[in-house]
C-alpha cells in the first residue's frame, strides 16, 4: 500500500518507515504538518499515519484541514496523549483509529492493514465467506461446510470481526476495543480464552483451523495454508 507518515521525531519516523517498508508498503515521510498537509492533498494514499503532536501545529488541526479538503483517506493517529477524552477528540476530528505511544510495531502494522479500504464499488456485504466458513450478517447465522454452528453473541461478534478482516492480522488490543469495547488492558487474557472457545466450536464442523495465532502480533483468520 502507499502510506503517508507525518512524524516530527526523525528517529522514530525512520524506524517506523523502515518497519512499514519491510512489511511491503511504500512510505512517504513528512516531518512537519505543512508538508504533510501538502502531500495529503496532492497524492493518493491508502492510509495516513499522523502524529498528533507536531512542532508548532496541532496534529488535529492538520487532520481537520485534510478532511476539509475532502480527502477521505483513512487516518491513524499516533499520540503520547492517552487520555480518556483524547481518543474521542481525535476520532471526532476525522481520525479513523488511535494508537498510543509507545506501541508495538506489530500493532501499528495490523491497524494500518485494517484501515485500508476495500475497493470501491463493493456493496455492503451481507455474507462473509472464508474457505468453507460462511456468516450471514442478516440472519446472524454461521455455517461451515453447510453445517450450522451455534455461537454465543460475543463469539459471533468476534468471528465477524475476524472475518471482515480476513487475511489480515488483528491484534489483541484491536479485538478488545472493537469486540468488547474495552479501551484499557485487562490483566486477564480474555481474548485468548474466547478465541480458543471459538476455535473449538469451528472445529466441530470438521475442517482445518482457520484462525491462526501470529506470534508477537495477534490472530489472523484466513484460508488454510
Amino acid at each position, binding site marked *: 500500500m502507499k502510506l503517508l507518515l507525518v512524524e516530527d521525531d526523525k528517529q522514530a519516523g525512520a524506524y517506523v518507515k523502515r518497519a512499514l517498508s519491510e512489511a511491503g508498503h511504500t512510505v512517504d515521510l513528512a516531518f512537519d504538518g505543512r508538508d504533510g498537509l501538502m502531500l495529503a492533498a496532492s497524492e493518493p494514499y491508502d492510509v495516513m499515519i499522523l502524529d498528533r503532536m507536531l512542532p508548532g501545529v496541532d496534529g488535529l488541526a492538520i487532520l481537520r484541514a485534510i478532511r476539509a479538503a475532502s480527502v477521505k483517506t483513512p487516518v491513524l493517529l499516533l499520540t503520547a496523549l492517552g487520555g*480518556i477524552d483524547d481518543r474521542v477528540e481525535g476520532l471526532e476530528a476525522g481520525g479513523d483509529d488511535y494508537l498510543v505511544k509507545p506501541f508495538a510495531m506489530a500493532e501499528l502494522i495490523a491497524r494500518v492493514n485494517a484501515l485500508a479500504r476495500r475497493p470501491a464499488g463493493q456493496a455492503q456485504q451481507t455474507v462473509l465467506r472464508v474457505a468453507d466458513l460462511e456468516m450471514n450478517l442478516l440472519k446472524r447465522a454461521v455455517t461451515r461446510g453447510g453445517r450450522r454452528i451455534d455461537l454465543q453473541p460475543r463469539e459471533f461478534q468476534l468471528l465477524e470481526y475476524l472475518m471482515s478482516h480476513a487475511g489480515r492480522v488483528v491484534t489483541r488490543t484491536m479485538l478488545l476495543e472493537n469486540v*468488547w469495547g*474495552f479501551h484499557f488492558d*485487562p490483566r486477564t487474557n480474555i481474548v485468548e480464552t*474466547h478465541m480458543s472457545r471459538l476455535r473449538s466450536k469451528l472445529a466441530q464442523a470438521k475442517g482445518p483451523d482457520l484462525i491462526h495465532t501470529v506470534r508477537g502480533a495477534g490472530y489472523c483468520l484466513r484460508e488454510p495454508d
Partner: protein
Amino acid sequence: MFRSSSLRLAALYTAVFAVAVVLLGATTLYATRQALSAQFEARIRTETAGLEQEYRTEGLDGVLEAVHERDETPGALEYGLRGPGGGALAGRLASADAPLGWSTLQLPDGAEHREAVRVYASPLGGGYRLLVGDETEHSEALDTLLLQHFGLAFLGVVLLGVAGGYGLSRGVNRRLTAMNNAAEAIIDGDLSRRIPVRGASDDLDRLAGTLNRMLDRIESLMHSLRQVSDDIAHDLRTPLTRLRQRLEAALEPGAREDVSATLEGALGDLDAILATFAALLRIAQIDRGGRRAGFQPTDLAVVARTVVEAFAPSAEESGAALNLAADDPVMVDGDAELLTQMLVNLVENALRHAGPGAATVVRVSQADGGAVLSVADNGPGVPKAERERLFDRFYRLEASRSTPGSGLGLALVASVARLHGADVTLDDAAPGLEVRVRFPPVVGD
C-alpha cells in the same frame, strides 16, 4: 490613601450631599425671599390703600390724623405726607423726596447709622403725596437665619462625610489588607492558608468564601499531582531498576540468558512499567473531575453483563466460577467506560485472590433509591486490619505480593467511585470479601 475605592466613594457621596445642601439652601433662600418680599410690599400697599380711602372720606385732616396716630404706634410702618410744593407735612418719611411708585431710601437712624427703607409713594388728590414704607432689615432677618442654618448644615455634611468616609475606608481597608496578606502567603507557597471570613455575610465575605473554595480545589489538585509524581518517582523506580539490572547482567561476559530472551524479558518489563504509568495517569485524570461533564444515564446491569460474560470463560478455565445476579435495568448517571474498567478491576481482583474453586458473584441491585454494585467472592478474604489499606496506591496484600499486578487496581476503583459520588465499602463475606459500591440516586427521578 486616595487609591482606596471606599474613600473615593465616600468623598463622592459627601460631595453630592454637600452640593444638595447648597442647592436646597439656595432655592429655599430664594423662595423665602420672594415670599417675604411679596408679603412685605403687600402690607405697604394695603396701608397705602387704607390711607387713600381715609383721604377720600375724611379729607386732608383725616389723613394727617391717621398718620400721626400710626407714628405713635410701635411696630407700625413708616409714613410720610408731603404737600404740593414738596413740603413735609407729617410722618418720618415726609422729608424724603421719593418718586412715585416703589423706591428704596437711605434714612438716618440716630446719629451715625443709615438704614434702608423701602417706600411706596402714591399721589393723593390736590398735589399731595403719600409715602408708606418699612425698613428692609425686617424682611432680611430671616435671610440671615436661613443662611446661618444652611451654612451649618453644609459644614456638618462635609465634616460627617470626611470623618465617616475615613472611618469606613479604614474598616474596609483592614479587611482587604487581610485578604491581600493571605493571598500573598498562598502565592509564596503556603497552600493551606485561607482568606479570613469576618462573618458579616456581606459581599466581601462572599468573595472570601468563594476564593477559599477555589483554594480548596487547587490544594486538592496540587495534592493529587504531587501524589502522582511521588508514586511515579518512588514506585516505578523499582521495576525500572530491575529492568536495568537485567540488561546489565545480560551484558556481562558470563551471562546466562541468551540475548533474545533478555530482550523479550526486557520488553515485558517495559510493558508492565508502561501499564503502571498509564494507570497512574488515568487515576490522576479521573481525579481531575472533568469527566463528570460527559455523564450519561448508564445501565449498570448491562455493564455487569458485559464484564461477567467476558471473564467467565477465563474464570472457568482456572476452575473458578463467575456469575451475575442483576435486576433489569439499574440506572446511574455516569461514564460507561470508566464504570466498566472499575468493575473489571474488581472482578479480576476477586478472581485472583479467591483462587481456584472459588465462586465470585457480581450483583447489581437497587437500594434506598441508589444503585448498588457488589462483587463478592468466597475465598480466603482479607483480614479487617488490612481492608482499609487496600485502597492505598501500590499497597499489596502480603499474601499476594508474588502475584502479578501493580496494586493500582483498587486505587482506580476508588477514583472512579469518587468521581461518580459513590462510596466503596469492603466487608467480610464470611467467608471471603465483598466489595460494595453504592451510587447516589439518579437526579430527576
